[in-house]
């Protein structure tokens, strides 16, 4: 007789960085259904941005929606707001914003990979990845002055300029990271146990990926060629010239490989940015108050981040709407979980890289 077990995961759990609750019904350990509850971290940031904070402060407030991808939130908010206020952003500022975004992507992807390793019980790889990740954290500190919440993007440009000495230091950091990347890739891909554990696990098909509206690495790992960096023109990515990376398998293994390749790609982009950085002022003055509505799309580490702002000429936004990548991916989670072993769930969950504080805001 088949009997279902109920295995709860969360809200506090060793495999979770953020509170979130999943209720699995399993047969033995195979998942047959899942219920999820994601709202534990709701703080009401959108509401606060529409009631309490001046529009100039909003980029700093929305950065606190999520610490992992803080810079993407503030950049997206800034890009949207700049369309409805009087402001001239220099080319250099745009390039610096891209630089910060790419650093953010690397550190986020590496954290995700480390978390996947930890969640699948591969502690040494977690340690290794976290150790290499420190280089990126240092690079971010050199660039902006802080490791995590660095409030770099602001209305009219970026908060700090960069001199050549700083550029050299950054180049050295990414160069060092580049040299260790192949070793990391070996440990993720050439190990018999990771192959057993990751291949064919947590897979999603191309058709499902389309139908469920996935974005970011999850979609790309399943073969969907989507990358907001070349789809939108808010930031001059096209000048850098690159192609989105796509994998076909859609499983955990493919997602890991995709992230590793994107890290390599981001390193390359950083090098190109640092080489071709245009001259100019890093910050320009913002005049007037937001009037009208605008939106911005940006490729956050987890996929498409969408901002919508509407101002009525007052100092406070009339409406601010954030649509985060994890929110778009949530629908696919269930499809991915079903039929998996419970023992794979922490690793799968980590590889989906959910950002609950983004989603719940």
């Amino acid at each position, binding site marked *: 007789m088949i*009997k279902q*077990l109920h295995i709860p995961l969360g*809200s506090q759990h060793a495999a979770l960085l953020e509170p979130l609750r999943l209720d699995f019904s399993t047969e033995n350990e195979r998942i047959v259904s899942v219920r999820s509850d994601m709202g534990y971290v709701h703080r009401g940031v959108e509401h606060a941005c529409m009631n309490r904070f001046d529009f100039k402060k909003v980029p700093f407030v929305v950065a606190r929606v999520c610490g992992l991808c803080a810079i993407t939130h503030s950049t997206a908010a800034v890009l949207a707001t700049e369309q409805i206020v009087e402001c001239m952003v220099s080319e250099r500022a745009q390039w610096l914003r891209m630089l910060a975004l790419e650093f953010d992507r690397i550190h986020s992807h590496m954290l995700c990979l480390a978390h996947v390793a930890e969640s699948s019980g591969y502690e040494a790889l977690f340690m290794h990845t976290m150790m290499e990740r420190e280089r990126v954290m240092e690079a971010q500190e050199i660039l902006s002055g802080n490791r995590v919440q660095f409030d770099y993007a602001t209305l009219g440009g970026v908060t700090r300029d960069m001199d050549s000495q700083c550029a050299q230091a950054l180049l050295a950091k990414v160069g060092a990271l580049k040299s260790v990347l192949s070793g990391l890739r070996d440990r993720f891909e050439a190990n018999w146990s990771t192959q057993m554990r990751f291949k064919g696990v947590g897979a999603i098909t191309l058709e499902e990926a389309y139908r469920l509206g996935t974005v970011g690495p999850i979609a790309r790992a399943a073969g969907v060629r989507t990358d907001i960096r070349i789809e939108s023109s808010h930031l001059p990515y096209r000048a850098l010239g690159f192609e989105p990376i796509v994998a076909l398998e859609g499983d955990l293994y493919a997602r890991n490989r995709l992230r590793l390749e994107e890290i390599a790609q981001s390193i390359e982009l950083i090098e190109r940015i640092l080489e071709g950085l245009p001259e100019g002022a890093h910050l320009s003055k913002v005049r007037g108050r937001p009037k009208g509505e605008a939106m911005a799309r940006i490729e956050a580490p987890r996929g498409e981040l969408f901002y919508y702002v509407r101002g009525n000429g007052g100092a406070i936004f009339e409406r601010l709407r954030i649509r985060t990548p994890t929110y778009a991916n949530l629908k696919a989670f269930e499809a991915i979980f079903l039929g998996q072993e419970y023992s794979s769930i922490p690793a799968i969950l980590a590889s989906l890289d959910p950002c609950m504080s983004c989603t719940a805001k």
Partner: protein
Amino acid sequence: MIENLTLFLILGPALLALVVYGAPRRLYGPLVVLSSALLFSAALLAWLLHAQSVAIALPAWTHAAIVLLDFALIGYFLWVGVRQNHRLIVLLALLQGALLGWVLYALSAAPLAEIVVDKLGATLWLLVTGVGGLIAWYAVGYMRHESDSPRRQQAFVAILIAFLGVMNALFVADSIELFFLLFELTTLSSFILIGWRRDAASRLSSLQALWMNQLGGVLLLLGMGVIIWQGAPLFFSALLESQSGWALGAAAFLIAGALIKGAQMPFDRWLLGAMVAPTPVSAILHSSTMVKIAPFMVLKLGVLLHGTPLAVAVAYFGGFVFVAGAFVALARNHLKEILAYSTISLLGLMVMLSAVATPLALSAALTLILFHGVAKAMLFMEAGVLEKLHHAKSVDEMGGMLSRAPMSVFLVLLGFASITLPPFGALVGKWVAIEASAQSAFLFLFVALGSVVIALLYFKVAGYMLGKPGSQMGLTIERIPRVFSVTTLLLGVTLALSAILIAPTLVYLIVPAIEPFAPGSEIAHKGLTLMLPSGDLPFWQIVGAWLLLLLLPLAGLKRMRRVDRVREYSGGERIEMQPVTFYFPTPRWIVRAMAIIGAIFFGLIVLLGGVLWVA
């Protein structure tokens, strides 16, 4: 003295059964207790007094009675087959009749004794009357919860008691002719008792049990035919003395017949079907006594087999059943089914050890026969208690039984522990088994694998009973009718006491019984220390493990006064949790493959019998 006791032990139960059946309602309970006590004291006395084998010749008229009864039984089976429109039963009954007729036709008068009371028989009497008597007593209480009329309840208990006589006779019968009759009588009683509840399921199961056991009877008759063909007397003792090939052939048929009675694969179905019957039936027929005919037969003929390909085939067959039975049991859900399959599995182990037939292996086999009998009877009785008082049959329904029925669960756990953990008898039997089977190639691999799977099985079931659903409640000591608690507790105490006294028990109970078959058993004891040729079990290990296992319930009853109580961790949430354990579905093809492998082994044994006979 022994002769009188033997007569009492064989015929007494039938008389006592009549008394019990005819007794007024008020008196029948005490009468059952009294008869059980009488029978057990007789068996104990016989065991104590027994010094050497005693042969008892039966008067000539008994031959006629045996023949008459034989044909009456076969006639009854034929009638059942015709009435139930079951062609197989009709066919087998006709076959049995023809074979029996032929055997009787060719039979020359036999000058030998018909009953030989040896130490093995006397030891098995202890098991039959001790455990069987308790089960009969237990059945008095159990049947009160059935919907039967009082008369029918008394009939049920009376049949159980009468059956003890059949078993007693079976273990000392030297005449194979008599043995066949008794074998057929056990077939009859399992047919009647399995069909006791008279519903559709019972009918089907009882018919299945009937035809399979009839097949066993046919094989017995074939074995007898082989002996007659050679013109040899129809006696076990004569068979054991002849060293020629045909004797092996006959032994192969006899063993094959007994293996069916022991529900070895692929004939495991009938024992499983027996779970539709009232629980005492499972306890007495299908765990502690009747199925033991299989290892008993192999044990008895083991010396004859020793060193032949037949012994190898039987041993590997037993080993296979040990693992396969345990594996199949993993997927089962009804407690009684699980117990039944683990019985089949352990019977396989006993058959295997009996076939190995070294003194050590035979000692291990007998140890297992005895202690498994006690433990399994207790487990089945507890399954009955859980079924009747707590309305839980399947393991799923037993979730968190601990908080409702701590006493029953404790005894079930004790039963499980006694089969899987040191220092209990059955485990020591298994230990001796490995030490014994290590000498003969790879048999111990079966023992190793099988015992681990059995441990997995039992702890899985234990897990269900322990896991508490719902809110955290204290234990409520349940009220159990005294019949249930006394009978099961007696068995539990037996298990616990024999565990600490395992060394003397083995030396004084098992070794003398085995000695006549395989002299030179090297089991010895010094105080509580058990000494085997290949390794000792010092007293401190026995006492240590015993204390640990018994310290646990005692300490568990005492509440820790100065320690805080806290809620279980559940990620900060508060959830109502249902106990969980895995289930291990056995794919259909594996079950089929196991049946086929069993059938091949079985066919091989019969074939070897044929070949050896011809050669």
